[in-house]
């Protein structure tokens, strides 16, 4: 493998992991507060859609990004009401949000764009160039510092580990979780925005392509901590970039080409192994999934 190819792969890795990174950080924020966020997939899709929509009309990717985050916050508010206040089952509600995203984005897309749900292409000039990489790094740093250094970060940790102690200390757990979920939605949507106005040039139906679930895997892999999770995202991005490159290529000392599927499923197998090896719940926030 030449240096050139390696550099290409690294560049691809960086690009592919950033949206995942946003989604994974979103997952951490929600889950550390005690709320399972299966709806990441839906938030990503909403973000991708509204970013494309608004960028097309405004010409600025930043405006599109903000719009995406607003949309994500709104949908997340619905999710929060369902699971935190109405005590709905978190898995089911999350699945509903995902379905809603899958269905409503092409639907609104048809109305807005006229075509079969996809948006027209966005000009290169109107898209992000390299800014998201910086945003991504900033995001991880901010989340890490916030979680470990600030008061609200500590509260979030306790909300997911021992909400009774937090309530006893005078902090309203349900309100905290609601805010966490809304922030989570906005962040995931931002990640989705990067899909349509950075990684590619338009919105296509279903373009989240399972990234929401990959993000969850990264969070588990990273044991719900920002920096290991970010590394996990890089790993997943790497395998993504690698499998595109390796299609058909032969590794040294192997006669047959390595099936691309093996590389594709590697991150997921690894997550299962991690879960099984570390006795399941050992690292998950203790109060995860339990309504307050």
């Amino acid at each position, binding site marked *: 493998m030449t240096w050139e190819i390696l550099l290409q792969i690294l560049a691809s890795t960086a690009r592919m992991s950033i949206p995942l990174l946003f989604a994974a950080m979103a997952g951490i924020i929600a889950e550390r507060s005690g709320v399972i966020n299966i709806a990441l997939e839906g938030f990503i899709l909403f973000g991708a859609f509204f970013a494309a929509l608004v960028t097309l009309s405004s010409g600025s990717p930043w405006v599109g990004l903000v719009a995406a985050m607003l949309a994500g916050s709104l949908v997340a508010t619905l999710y929060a009401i369902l699971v935190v206040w*109405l005590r709905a089952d978190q898995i089911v509600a999350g699945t509903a949000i995902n*379905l809603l995203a899958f269905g409503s984005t092409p639907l609104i897309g048809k109305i807005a764009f006229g075509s079969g749900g996809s948006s027209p292409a966005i000009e290169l000039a109107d898209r992000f160039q390299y800014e998201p990489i910086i945003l991504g790094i900033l995001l991880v740093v901010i989340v890490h510092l916030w979680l470990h250094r600030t008061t609200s970060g500590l509260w979030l940790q306790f909300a997911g580990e021992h909400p009774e102690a937090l309530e006893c200390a005078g902090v309203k757990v349900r309100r905290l979780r609601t805010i966490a979920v809304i922030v989570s939605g906005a962040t995931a949507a931002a990640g989705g925005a990067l899909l349509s106005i950075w990684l590619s040039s338009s919105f296509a139906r279903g373009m989240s392509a399972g990234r929401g679930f990959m993000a969850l895997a990264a969070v588990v892999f990273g044991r719900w901590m920002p920096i290991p999770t970010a590394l996990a995202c890089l790993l997943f991005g790497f395998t993504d970039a690698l499998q595109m490159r390796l299609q058909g290529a032969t590794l040294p000392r192997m006669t047959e080409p390595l*099936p691309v*599927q093996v590389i594709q499923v590697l991150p*997921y*197998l690894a997550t299962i192994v991690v879960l*099984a090896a570390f006795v399941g719940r050992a690292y*998950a926030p203790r109060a995860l999934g339990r309504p307050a």
Partner: protein
Amino acid sequence: MISGAASNSGGILRQTLLELLRALVAVAAGLLLGASLTAIAGENPLNILAILFRSAFGTPWDFGMSLFYATPLIFTGLSVAIAFRAGLFNIGAEGQLTLGALAAAVVGVTATGVAAPWSLFLAVLAAMSAGFLWGGIAGVLKATRGSHEVITTIMLNFVAAGIASFVTLEMFRNTETQNPETLPVAASFALKPLTMFEGAPTTVAFFWGIAAAGVVAFLLFKSVWGFGVRAVGQSEPAALVAGINVRRVQITAMAVAGAVAGLAGLGEVLGSAGRFRLGFSADYGFMGIAVALLARGRPFAVILAAILFGALHKGAADLDFETENVTRDLAVVLQASVIIMVCADGVWDAIRDGLRRRRSTAIRAESAG
């Protein structure tokens, strides 16, 4: 989980009717809410709903198509319902149905010498075995390592997709087309469309689904195993004191759930498509969750819920033609809003709990002294 959500007085009949009523209200609310989205496109929501209804049930062909879409949902709905009963979440129905369909296709392609009906028996066996195994893995991980089945089953979905991709593309690829699909299954494995639906690809698989619901109901409510499953799902401490082996129940419940999900794809693999195509599943696994929730984990209600969702799927297809802007995606939106309404149905429980909490502080005070 699936709450009994019954009233505090009155017999089983009254409880069931009340639940039915709540479900109907949720469905109606969801449909209306979702349809009102179309008002943005300038359509009349009620008109939309009328089109949907007509498209789903208008002619025998329409009805047949609705049932065709419903068939896989019956199986995945049953699968999720079984797991729910044991207190577990089976998000892996997608992967289980993929591998089940794949197994059936492989058998159908390779075992060409076997005559019908043994061929079908073999295919069903293969599909159930693959699903059983796939579900069982998650069950074992949960019972022995405590791994949360939500995450393991989601991961297993991805792995299953990878396996399906490999087997289809590398081992049984149909080189005559560009589509990522296997070779066609042998004639003895093929399921013919039922003539009563005038050309709709509905096969006998739909009736297999109904039979499966009957079997699942029997298993859950009549067998000792089913009793154990329901006991564990309702109260693990009570099950322990009753001597039920909770771990064994968790493993077997997930495995059986997987086996049932494995059958979901047969209608297509042996019937309409006659082969395994990558990505043939229109999120049947996730829809199964919605179906099971709407049916509150009752096997026969699963059939009804599946038909509802199948009908929405079919009904929305005509929207493409009959309206300017509304596409078939509306089906998914409607399905989502029905689920949300069912979730929000927890508002009744929340109110009831609020009243209960004031009473229960009394009980807590009693015991804490």
